[in-house]
C-alpha cells in the first residue's frame, strides 16, 4: 500500500482499536461473566478467517467471522479481535502485511463490524426472527469488508485509464463476487453458533442487551 494511504488508514484505525481496547477492559472488569463469550467471539474470528474457501468464481478467499463479535460486543471490541487476527496473519504468514495493517483493520475490523452491528440492530427492531438478523449481520459484515478493501485499493492504486473508479470496479469484481457465496456460508454458520449460545448462555446475551427477554424466551421455547 503506497504512501500516503497506509498512514491514513493507520490514523483512522488506531483510535477505534484503542477505544475498543478500553471498552473491552471496562467490560471484563465490570462483568467478568462475559469473559468466556468474549473468548468465543474472538475464537470464531480466528477459525473463520483461517479458512480459505473456494468460491464459484474459481478462486479462494476467507470469511471474516467478525459479525458475531460485533453483534455481541459492538463494533469497537470486534475491531480489537480483528486486529489480533490480522497481526497474527501479518507476522506469521506474511498475509496482509504490516504496512497494510491499518487498512485491513479498517475494512475487516471497523467497516465490516459497523455494518454488521447496524444491520443486526435494524433487523431486530423490525421484530423479525433473530436468527435471520444474525445471518444478515454476519453476511453483510463479511461482504462489506471486501467492498471496503476494494475501495481502499482503488483509492491507493488508481488505474492509468479511468482512475480510481475503474480500479474499484476491477477490484470489486474480484473480491466482492468471490465473497458472495462465502458471506452466505458465514451468515448461516454464525446463526447456528448463535443458536447454541442462546441455549447455553442466553443470560449473558440478555445482560449484554444483545436480545430482549421476550425474544430470548421465544427462541428457547422454539428450541425447547
Amino acid at each position, binding site marked *: 500500500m*503506497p*504512501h500516503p494511504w497506509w498512514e491514513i488508514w493507520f490514523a483512522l484505525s488506531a483510535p477505534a482499536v484503542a477505544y475498543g481496547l478500553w471498552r473491552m477492559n471496562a467490560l471484563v472488569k465490570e462483568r467478568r461473566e462475559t469473559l*468466556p*463469550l468474549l*473468548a*468465543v467471539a*474472538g*475464537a*470464531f*474470528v*480466528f*477459525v473463520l478467517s*483461517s*479458512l*480459505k*474457501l*473456494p*468460491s*464459484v*468464481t*474459481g*478462486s*479462494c*478467499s476467507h470469511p471474516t467471522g467478525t459479525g458475531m463479535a460485533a453483534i455481541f460486543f459492538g463494533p469497537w471490541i470486534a475491531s480489537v479481535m480483528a486486529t489480533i*487476527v490480522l497481526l*497474527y496473519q501479518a*507476522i*506469521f*504468514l*506474511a*498475509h496482509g*502485511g*504490516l*504496512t497494510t495493517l491499518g487498512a485491513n483493520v479498517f475494512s475487516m475490523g471497523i467497516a465490516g463490524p459497523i455494518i454488521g452491528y447496524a444491520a443486526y440492530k435494524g433487523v431486530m427492531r423490525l421484530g423479525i426472527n433473530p*436468527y435471520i438478523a444474525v445471518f444478515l449481520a454476519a453476511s453483510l459484515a463479511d461482504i462489506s469488508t471486501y467492498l471496503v478493501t476494494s475501495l481502499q*485499493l482503488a483509492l491507493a*492504486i*488508481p*488505474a*492509468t485509464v479511468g482512475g480510481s473508479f*475503474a*480500479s474499484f470496479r*476491477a*477490484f470489486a469484481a*474480484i*473480491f466482492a463476487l*468471490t*465473497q458472495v*457465496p462465502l458471506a*452466505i*456460508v458465514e451468515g*448461516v*454458520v454464525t*446463526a*447456528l453458533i448463535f443458536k*447454541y449460545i442462546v*441455549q*447455553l*448462555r442466553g443470560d449473558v446475551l440478555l445482560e449484554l442487551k444483545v436480545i430482549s427477554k421476550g425474544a430470548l424466551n421465544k427462541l428457547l421455547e422454539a*428450541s425447547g
Partner: protein
Amino acid sequence: MKGELITAAVLIVFFGAFLYVNSTGDHEWSGADSQAEGAIGELTGGSYEPWFEPIWEPPSGEIENLFFSLQAAIGGLIIGYFLGYNRRRSEVESPAKRGTNAR
C-alpha cells in the same frame, strides 16, 4: 434441528457449486488477493511496485498451511471448550433436563 439442517443444506449447495464449477473448466483456485495483485499490474500498466517487503515470509506453502491450521485449531479448541463446558453446566443446574437432549 432446523438450524443444523439449514446449515447442512447450505454447505452441501456450496460444495456442490464448487464441484460443478471445478468440472466446467480450468480454474486455478488461487487466492482472490493474488488475483488483485494481477489486476494492479494490469490497471497501472505494471508501474506499481510494492515498496515494502514482508520481513518474514513462510518458507513454503506447507509452513503457511501450518500457521493457518494452527489458527483454526486454537479457535476451534476455545469454541469447543465453551460449548462443552456450558452444556454440562446447564445439565447440572437443571437436573430435570439431564439425559434429555437439550436441543
